[in-house]
Protein backbone atom coordinates (compact mmCIF):
# COMPACT_ATOMS: atom_id res chain seq x y z
CA UNK A 1 0.00 0.00 0.00
CA UNK A 2 1.64 3.17 -1.24
CA UNK A 3 0.45 6.59 -0.14
CA UNK A 4 1.82 9.82 -1.63
CA UNK A 5 0.50 13.16 -0.41
CA UNK A 6 1.84 16.62 -1.30
CA UNK A 7 -0.07 19.47 0.25
CA UNK A 8 0.21 22.87 1.97
CA UNK A 9 -1.62 21.47 5.01
CA UNK A 10 0.26 20.67 8.25
CA UNK A 11 1.37 17.03 8.38
CA UNK A 12 -0.89 14.78 10.46
CA UNK A 13 1.70 12.49 12.06
CA UNK A 14 -0.72 10.42 14.12
CA UNK A 15 -3.25 10.05 11.31
CA UNK A 16 -0.60 8.97 8.80
CA UNK A 17 0.92 6.49 11.25
CA UNK A 18 -2.34 4.85 12.30
CA UNK A 19 -3.19 4.45 8.57
CA UNK A 20 -0.31 1.95 8.21
CA UNK A 21 -0.65 0.15 11.55
CA UNK A 22 -3.52 -2.19 10.65
CA UNK A 23 -3.30 -5.75 9.35
CA UNK A 24 -0.36 -7.93 10.36
CA UNK A 25 2.16 -5.12 10.59
CA UNK A 26 4.89 -5.81 13.15
CA UNK A 27 7.27 -2.91 12.54
CA UNK A 28 6.72 0.74 11.65
CA UNK A 29 9.68 3.03 10.97
CA UNK A 30 9.32 6.70 10.28
CA UNK A 31 11.37 9.76 9.55
CA UNK A 32 10.19 13.33 9.91
CA UNK A 33 12.08 16.43 8.78
CA UNK A 34 11.31 19.71 10.51
CA UNK A 35 12.13 23.34 9.89
CA UNK A 36 15.14 23.99 12.16
CA UNK A 37 14.71 26.87 14.53
CA UNK A 38 18.38 27.44 15.26
CA UNK A 39 19.70 29.31 12.24
CA UNK A 40 17.60 32.46 12.18
CA UNK A 41 15.10 31.27 9.56
CA UNK A 42 11.74 32.98 9.91
CA UNK A 43 9.95 31.24 7.06
CA UNK A 44 10.82 28.22 4.92
CA UNK A 45 8.96 27.97 1.64
CA UNK A 46 8.75 24.76 -0.37
CA UNK A 47 8.07 24.89 -4.10
CA UNK A 48 7.30 21.78 -6.13
CA UNK A 49 6.51 20.63 -9.67
CA UNK A 50 2.87 19.54 -9.50
CA UNK A 51 2.32 16.16 -11.13
CA UNK A 52 6.01 15.40 -11.65
CA UNK A 53 6.70 15.58 -7.91
CA UNK A 54 3.97 13.10 -7.04
CA UNK A 55 5.11 10.80 -9.86
CA UNK A 56 8.72 10.92 -8.60
CA UNK A 57 7.65 10.10 -5.03
CA UNK A 58 5.50 7.25 -6.32
CA UNK A 59 8.49 5.82 -8.22
CA UNK A 60 10.70 6.02 -5.12
CA UNK A 61 8.08 4.31 -2.95
CA UNK A 62 7.42 1.64 -5.60
CA UNK A 63 11.14 0.84 -5.85
CA UNK A 64 11.27 0.45 -2.06
CA UNK A 65 8.37 -2.00 -2.06
CA UNK A 66 10.19 -4.07 -4.70
CA UNK A 67 13.44 -4.06 -2.77
CA UNK A 68 12.14 -4.73 0.76
CA UNK A 69 9.26 -6.75 2.13
CA UNK A 70 6.91 -3.88 2.98
CA UNK A 71 3.25 -3.69 3.84
CA UNK A 72 3.07 0.10 3.46
CA UNK A 73 5.19 3.01 2.25
CA UNK A 74 3.95 6.54 2.89
CA UNK A 75 5.52 9.81 1.74
CA UNK A 76 3.87 13.04 2.85
CA UNK A 77 5.53 16.32 1.89
CA UNK A 78 4.36 19.76 2.80
CA UNK A 79 4.66 22.65 0.30
CA UNK A 80 4.21 26.41 0.64
CA UNK A 81 5.36 28.56 3.55
CA UNK A 82 6.09 27.07 6.97
CA UNK A 83 7.60 28.15 10.29
CA UNK A 84 10.47 26.80 12.41
CA UNK A 85 9.41 23.65 14.29
CA UNK A 86 6.84 22.65 11.65
CA UNK A 87 7.05 19.31 9.84
CA UNK A 88 8.28 19.46 6.23
CA UNK A 89 8.28 15.80 5.29
CA UNK A 90 7.19 12.50 6.80
CA UNK A 91 8.08 9.06 5.46
CA UNK A 92 6.70 5.90 7.01
CA UNK A 93 7.31 2.25 6.25
CA UNK A 94 5.47 -0.75 7.67
CA UNK A 95 6.70 -4.33 7.46
CA UNK A 96 6.45 -7.66 9.23
CA UNK A 97 10.06 -7.26 10.47
CA UNK A 98 12.08 -4.30 11.66
CA UNK A 99 15.13 -4.51 9.36
CA UNK A 100 12.94 -4.05 6.25
CA UNK A 101 11.05 -1.14 7.81
CA UNK A 102 14.23 0.62 9.03
CA UNK A 103 16.25 0.21 5.84
CA UNK A 104 13.36 1.17 3.55
CA UNK A 105 12.64 4.25 5.67
CA UNK A 106 16.25 5.48 5.30
CA UNK A 107 16.07 4.72 1.57
CA UNK A 108 12.89 6.75 1.04
CA UNK A 109 14.21 9.90 2.68
CA UNK A 110 17.67 9.63 1.06
CA UNK A 111 16.20 9.23 -2.41
CA UNK A 112 13.55 11.89 -1.88
CA UNK A 113 16.29 14.42 -1.13
CA UNK A 114 17.84 14.05 -4.60
CA UNK A 115 15.15 12.57 -6.86
CA UNK A 116 11.98 14.56 -6.19
CA UNK A 117 11.46 18.08 -7.53
CA UNK A 118 11.17 20.28 -4.44
CA UNK A 119 12.98 23.54 -3.84
CA UNK A 120 13.46 25.32 -0.53
CA UNK A 121 13.61 29.06 -0.02
CA UNK A 122 14.58 30.43 3.38
CA UNK A 123 13.60 33.89 4.58
CA UNK A 124 15.58 35.58 7.35
CA UNK A 125 14.16 39.00 8.15
CA UNK A 126 13.90 40.77 4.77
CA UNK A 127 16.35 38.50 2.99
CA UNK A 128 15.25 35.42 1.04
CA UNK A 129 17.59 32.87 -0.50
CA UNK A 130 17.18 29.55 -2.29
CA UNK A 131 18.81 26.63 -0.50
CA UNK A 132 21.73 25.08 -2.42
CA UNK A 133 21.77 21.34 -3.10
CA UNK A 134 24.16 19.50 -0.78
CA UNK A 135 26.83 17.10 -1.97
CA UNK A 136 26.17 14.95 1.12
CA UNK A 137 22.61 14.34 -0.12
CA UNK A 138 23.86 13.08 -3.47
CA UNK A 139 26.30 10.84 -1.63
CA UNK A 140 23.59 9.47 0.65
CA UNK A 141 21.37 8.67 -2.32
CA UNK A 142 24.20 7.12 -4.34
CA UNK A 143 24.91 4.72 -1.47
CA UNK A 144 21.63 2.98 -2.38
CA UNK A 145 22.46 2.97 -6.09
CA UNK A 146 25.78 1.26 -5.36
CA UNK A 147 23.77 -1.38 -3.50
CA UNK A 148 21.41 -1.71 -6.48
CA UNK A 149 24.33 -2.54 -8.73
CA UNK A 150 25.56 -5.41 -6.55
Amino acid sequence: MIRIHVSPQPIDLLGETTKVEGGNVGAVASFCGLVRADDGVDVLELEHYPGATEAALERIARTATQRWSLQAATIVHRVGPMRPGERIVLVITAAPHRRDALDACAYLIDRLKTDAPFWKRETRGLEARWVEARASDTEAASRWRADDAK
Partner: protein
Amino acid sequence: MTILYFAWVRERIGLAEEAPRLPDGVTSVAELIAWLAARGGGYAEAFAEPERLRAAVDQNFVGLDASVIGAREVAIFPPVTGG
Protein backbone atom coordinates in the same frame (compact mmCIF):
# COMPACT_ATOMS: atom_id res chain seq x y z
CA MET B 1 5.58 23.23 -26.26
CA THR B 2 5.09 24.51 -22.75
CA ILE B 3 8.22 25.54 -20.86
CA LEU B 4 8.08 25.57 -17.04
CA TYR B 5 10.49 27.33 -14.70
CA PHE B 6 10.97 26.64 -11.00
CA ALA B 7 12.70 28.21 -7.99
CA TRP B 8 15.35 30.84 -8.81
CA VAL B 9 15.05 30.11 -12.53
CA ARG B 10 11.40 31.16 -12.31
CA GLU B 11 12.21 34.19 -10.17
CA ARG B 12 14.97 35.51 -12.43
CA ILE B 13 12.90 35.06 -15.58
CA GLY B 14 9.81 36.43 -13.85
CA LEU B 15 7.58 33.76 -15.39
CA ALA B 16 6.36 30.34 -14.19
CA GLU B 17 5.58 29.10 -17.70
CA GLU B 18 5.35 30.11 -21.33
CA ALA B 19 4.73 28.46 -24.72
CA PRO B 20 7.06 30.15 -27.23
CA ARG B 21 7.37 29.18 -30.88
CA LEU B 22 10.76 27.50 -31.22
CA PRO B 23 13.07 27.93 -34.25
CA ASP B 24 13.96 24.73 -36.14
CA GLY B 25 17.54 24.61 -34.83
CA VAL B 26 16.41 23.91 -31.25
CA THR B 27 16.41 20.12 -30.81
CA SER B 28 17.94 19.57 -27.33
CA VAL B 29 17.40 21.03 -23.86
CA ALA B 30 20.84 22.66 -24.07
CA GLU B 31 19.92 24.33 -27.38
CA LEU B 32 16.62 25.47 -25.87
CA ILE B 33 18.48 27.01 -22.93
CA ALA B 34 20.97 28.76 -25.24
CA TRP B 35 18.15 30.12 -27.39
CA LEU B 36 16.27 31.41 -24.32
CA ALA B 37 19.47 32.89 -22.78
CA ALA B 38 20.01 34.88 -25.99
CA ARG B 39 16.85 36.85 -25.15
CA GLY B 40 18.97 38.61 -22.50
CA GLY B 41 17.65 40.21 -19.29
CA GLY B 42 16.30 37.72 -16.74
CA TYR B 43 16.80 34.85 -19.20
CA ALA B 44 20.50 35.59 -19.56
CA GLU B 45 20.76 35.84 -15.79
CA ALA B 46 18.84 32.61 -15.10
CA PHE B 47 20.82 30.63 -17.70
CA ALA B 48 24.29 32.12 -17.16
CA GLU B 49 25.63 28.86 -15.69
CA PRO B 50 24.02 25.90 -17.48
CA GLU B 51 25.91 23.47 -15.21
CA ARG B 52 23.68 24.69 -12.36
CA LEU B 53 20.53 23.72 -14.28
CA ARG B 54 18.49 20.54 -14.35
CA ALA B 55 15.63 19.63 -16.69
CA ALA B 56 12.66 17.39 -17.24
CA VAL B 57 11.04 16.52 -20.58
CA ASP B 58 7.41 15.48 -20.29
CA GLN B 59 8.03 15.13 -16.54
CA ASN B 60 10.99 12.75 -16.90
CA PHE B 61 14.31 13.95 -15.49
CA VAL B 62 16.87 14.17 -18.29
CA GLY B 63 20.37 15.43 -19.00
CA LEU B 64 20.72 18.76 -20.81
CA ASP B 65 21.71 16.87 -23.97
CA ALA B 66 18.26 15.22 -24.15
CA SER B 67 16.03 15.83 -27.14
CA VAL B 68 13.03 18.16 -26.95
CA ILE B 69 11.67 17.12 -30.36
CA GLY B 70 7.98 16.29 -30.00
CA ALA B 71 7.97 17.20 -26.29
CA ARG B 72 4.82 18.74 -24.88
CA GLU B 73 6.36 20.01 -21.64
CA VAL B 74 9.93 20.98 -20.80
CA ALA B 75 10.86 22.12 -17.27
CA ILE B 76 14.09 23.92 -16.35
CA PHE B 77 15.11 24.29 -12.70
CA PRO B 78 17.97 24.22 -10.17
CA PRO B 79 19.13 21.02 -8.42
CA VAL B 80 16.38 19.87 -6.06
CA THR B 81 16.52 20.57 -2.32
CA GLY B 82 13.44 18.94 -0.80
CA GLY B 83 12.86 16.85 2.24
